[in-house]
């Protein structure tokens, strides 16, 4: 459901006829209210991150990012995303193929279940893995006997991230592939094309922008997830800290400048994500109209 907010929108720039719009003062007032709201609620926090990050100058900023713990956090964040995002992408494509290209009973239920992680509080997304793999959990004793660690270690962080970002790719592909139907693939198959070949030559070119769209949103969330990861991480500096967790530790230690410096990295990721998203949306709108 949270993914439902990523609807592709196109902005029209035509002026409306006079009798179908509001008087000029009302228009200006509404625009002012909208800008003020977005300004205070969205832009002000972003400015704060930048100003606080550079409060002690450029060299302090670079210093904060070069800190070994920050680098370790960056590495763990990248590793986590590098595992979680491809797996969720493969899942998203497989699920979308099964759901949109075939008829079967229980389809609506399956779609609802895929959406579930959006409805679950991040804290619970972490908690469920503690219950499975923690010392008191179902598999806890077995893991301990075999000297394996899942929670309070990297595997737990990856699992919690996978849970939280689970629906992203599937969510983007489902409406797109539903709209595209099965004609292209059926034509290819009737001409003798094999399964994988049909997918790579026919389906993939049709869905590439939607797929990319889902992947970058999935990635942004994977790198930025805080609540779920916080529950399973164990907060060991330099070992089980991701970037968002590192921000928290620095902040709680009153190292505000360093904290905001690391935060500015993640903000940059968010901005890049949205810029790419904007670029893809144009292509996506065109590929949808082309159908």
């Amino acid at each position, binding site marked *: 459901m949270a993914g439902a907010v990523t609807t592709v929108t196109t902005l029209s720039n035509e002026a409306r006829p006079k009798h179908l719009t509001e*008087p000029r003062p009302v228009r200006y007032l509404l625009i002012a209210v*909208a800008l003020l709201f977005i300004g205070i609620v969205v832009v002000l926090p972003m400015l704060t991150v930048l100003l606080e990050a550079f409060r002690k100058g450029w060299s302090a900023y670079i210093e904060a990012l070069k800190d070994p713990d920050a680098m370790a956090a960056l590495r763990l964040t990248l590793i986590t995303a590098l595992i979680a995002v491809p797996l969720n992408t493969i*899942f998203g494509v497989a699920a979308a193929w*099964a759901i949109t290209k075939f008829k079967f009973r229980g389809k609506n239920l399956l779609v*609802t279940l895929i959406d579930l992680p959006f*409805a679950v509080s*991040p804290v619970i997304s972490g908690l469920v893995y503690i219950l499975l793999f923690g010392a008191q959990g179902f598999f806890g004793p077995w893991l301990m006997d075999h000297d394996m660690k899942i929670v309070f270690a990297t595997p737990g962080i990856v699992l919690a991230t996978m849970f939280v970002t689970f629906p992203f790719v599937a969510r983007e592909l489902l409406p797109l592939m539903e709209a595209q139907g099965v004609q292209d693939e059926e034509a290819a198959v009737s001409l003798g094309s094999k399964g994988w070949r049909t997918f790579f030559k026919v389906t993939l070119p049709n869905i590439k922008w939607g797929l990319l769209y889902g992947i970058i949103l999935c990635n942004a969330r994977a790198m*930025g997830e805080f609540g779920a990861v916080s529950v399973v991480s164990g907060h060991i500096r330099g070992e089980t800290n991701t970037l968002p967790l590192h*921000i928290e530790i620095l902040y709680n230690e009153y190292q505000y400048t360093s904290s905001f410096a690391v935060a500015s990295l993640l903000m940059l990721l968010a901005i890049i994500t*949205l810029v790419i998203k904007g670029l893809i949306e144009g292509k996506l709108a065109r590929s949808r109209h082309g159908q």
Partner: protein
Amino acid sequence: MAANRKRKSALPGFRFTMGFTVLYLSLIVLIPLAGLVVKTAGLTLPQFWDTVTSQRVLASYRVSLLTAFFAALVNVAFGLIVAWVLVRYRFPGKKIVDGLVDIPFALPTAVAGIALTSIYAPNGWIGKLLDPLGIKVAYTPLGITVALIFIGVPFVVRTVQPVLQELENEMEESAALLGAYRWRTFRKVLLPELVPPLITGFALAFARGIGEYGSVVFISGNMPLKTEITPLLIITKLEQYEYSQATAIALVLLLISFALLLVINTLQRWTNRRLRSA
């Protein structure tokens, strides 16, 4: 990848993709969530009831539900205005404003949390202005609401925007020709069409707000009974090794979320039907 030609579809790969989907879904989502239910089932009913209705837990539901409710309400009002302005008016920087709407969705919650706290703390940009007036934002329920307003921005805007775009001009046109004033046209002709997406947006923002953790935990101050949200209480119980208590509270939170998901899905189907029939 066995081609399943008994199915109606001539396409291959059903068994393979379906099998993988169900397996992966079960391993990552369903089995872990089932574990939560099984763990709670280990409690007797009175134990469960005492846990989820203890004073501190009840206070946390109250804080979570009320702040999420008011934040979603604020987002309905301003989200409608933002969506309206984006769809219907021309102004410089419109594309940028449209992009900014998605920031709360893309910005990691911890980043939002520390930024909002430093803005609304008594010595922050806005906190400094409000402090002399006796208004405290950071470390109060008002601060939690502010964080949840930030988190909820995209939900209302992005549910109202497509509906507003699809609305036909004809009804508006005839209302105008019949001499209806703009405000009356809005109330009688446009608003009824916008109510379903507004409620959906509200429910989405509300649901997200109840479970939200990262952006809230910095600004809330986390005082038991006063500014302690339910997700934080779950973490506190976990840190005290009160696993079954944490699980019981989590189950209640989960049930609230699922109930909301059901409402949202019904609403969205309703809106989509109206959109298609329009």
